[in-house]
């Protein structure tokens, strides 16, 4: 009989529960949930702000999920420490929770760089949680001048969510282009043009240096008056619990291909973990939902005595604004070859190295993109297929008849 404890109640935690229950339907599972909600679809908070998703219908699983899976959930409770010798987790109210197998699925937190005068800003928000969204939702009016610091995925989805609701929207970022973590200048310019068509203004290469009440003084010396400030500079993996006990931690909690940390019987999954990125050939934090799902499942299965390996994680991002979609996957390693195509309002870039596709960026040409992703994840050698055809169109017609027979000829 095991005694499973999961720290966190997001995507990785849900999948960890399902992984455990695929093998062990008896042992108790306790979930420590800092947030007071059942696991919800976190990326939908921007859709809720926009009125396109109903906060009451954003749960990841049906209402009876925890009960059906025999889970006790401690809502509104935080884990503040782990004792790896006694094998227990200390909770914020002081109680100790014993475990035999522990999964740290603690997610990430907004990173707020030191900015002078931030405490003088009355209405400032992060945009990571349901409560962040509800607070912003309650504060914004049709006259609000909104300043968003950070032109990454979170800041821009927040901007889209507010576009029809606020008086004005300005997004600043120290980077010279938007979405700098996933797009080059060309791709970013396409996405930016679409956002600008919807009234969103940008201050690229500039960010707030200090605040004086409702005024931001920018690095450039410009001033920006605002009513609402959203801080979306970046996120940091929540690694402290494992770091504090001497576990291996880099940017995230380091996990092997079975989601084990360096501490016996402690696993980690999701945005707090740093696992192997097969497109890069190195470890990195992949704070994306599919990765949390697959890592959580892998951790759960192994915690319950199974043998699951997850070794083909790759970065995956699908993000769109006002109907223009950008799909990216994998990496552009040093020395890679680039194939590119473009037309009005769209571009495609594919990166190859050593005979494999390692990554791509598609803006406005998303059709069947998963076929490209499969070449990266499954490490399909490009010399086994018609890459000349595939470069122009993501189609399984570029595969050999035998490859196609394997894909389509039976149950998969």
């Amino acid at each position, binding site marked *: 009989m095991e005694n499973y404890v999961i720290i966190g109640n997001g995507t990785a935690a849900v999948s960890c529960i399902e992984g455990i229950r695929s093998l062990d339907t008896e042992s108790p599972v306790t979930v420590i949930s800092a947030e007071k909600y059942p696991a919800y*679809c976190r990326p939908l908070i921007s859709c809720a702000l926009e009125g396109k998703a109903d906060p009451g219908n954003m749960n990841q699983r049906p209402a009876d999920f925890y009960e059906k899976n025999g889970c006790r959930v401690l809502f509104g409770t935080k884990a503040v420490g782990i004792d790896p010798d006694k094998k227990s987790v200390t909770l914020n109210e002081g109680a100790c929770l014993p475990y035999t197998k522990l999964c740290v699925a603690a997610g990430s937190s907004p990173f707020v760089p030191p900015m002078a005068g931030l405490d003088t800003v009355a209405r400032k928000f992060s945009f990571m949680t349901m409560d962040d969204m509800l607070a912003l939702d309650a504060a914004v009016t049709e006259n609000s001048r909104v300043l968003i610091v950070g032109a990454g995925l979170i800041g821009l989805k927040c901007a889209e969510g507010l576009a029809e609701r606020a008086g004005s929207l300005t997004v600043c970022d120290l980077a010279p282009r938007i979405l700098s973590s996933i797009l080059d200048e060309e791709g970013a310019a396409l996405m930016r043009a679409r956002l600008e068509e919807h009234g969103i203004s940008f201050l690229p290469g500039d960010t707030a240096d200090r605040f004086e009440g409702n005024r931001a003084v920018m690095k450039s010396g410009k001033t920006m008056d605002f009513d609402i400030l959203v801080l979306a500079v970046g996120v940091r993996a929540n690694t402290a619990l494992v770091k504090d006990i001497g576990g291996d931690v880099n940017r995230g909690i380091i996990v092997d291909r079975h989601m084990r940390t360096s501490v016996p019987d402690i696993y980690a999954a999701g945005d707090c973990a740093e696992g192997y990125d097969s497109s890069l050939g190195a470890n990195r934090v992949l704070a994306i939902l*599919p990765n949390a*799902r697959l890592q959580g499942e892998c951790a759960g299965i192994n915690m319950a005595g199974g043998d699951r390996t997850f070794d083909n994680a790759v970065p995956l991002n*699908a993000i769109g604004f006002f109907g223009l979609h950008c799909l990216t996957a994998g990496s552009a390693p040093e020395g890679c070859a680039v194939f590119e195509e473009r037309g009005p309002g769209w571009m495609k870039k594919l990166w190859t190295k050593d005979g494999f596709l390692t990554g791509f960026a598609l803006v406005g040409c998303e059709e*069947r993109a998963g076929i490209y992703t499969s070449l990266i994840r499954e490490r399909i050698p490009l010399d086994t297929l018609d890459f000349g*055809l595939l470069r122009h169109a993501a189609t399984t*017609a570029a595969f050999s008849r035998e490859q196609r027979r394997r894909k*389509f000829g039976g149950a*998969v």
Partner: protein
Amino acid sequence: MKRVYVNEEWCLGCHLCEYNCAFANSGGSDMASALRGKPIFPRIHIEGDERVTYAVSCRHCDDPLCVKACIAGALSQGEDGVIRIEKTRCVGCFTCVLVCPYGALAPAEDGVMQKCELCLSNASGEPACVKGCPNRAIVYEER
């Protein structure tokens, strides 16, 4: 479970499956009034070139990446193995398109994703692409 399979040796590339699919899912009572003069958004499509053609629709994978990657909880796999989409929950983010290795998902006219659900809950009751395939290239069977 029974799935839709395509024998590419027999596929004529006639695109009839696309029309039968669009009609079966249109809710209309006759094909002409349902589809005439409109762009169609079928859940099966013909791929290929001058050498080979074949129809592609959802494989209903045993371990579906689309379901795992869905950010909205809109895609799910029933106990019958069929992967379905709850259209009111889909936000059209394209993550499923990004991960499906078969290129089997595409948006409907309204931008929300749609996929083959084997015609189990429309008036056809069994895959319309299979019923209407003139060369019996598309089959519905256990493999």
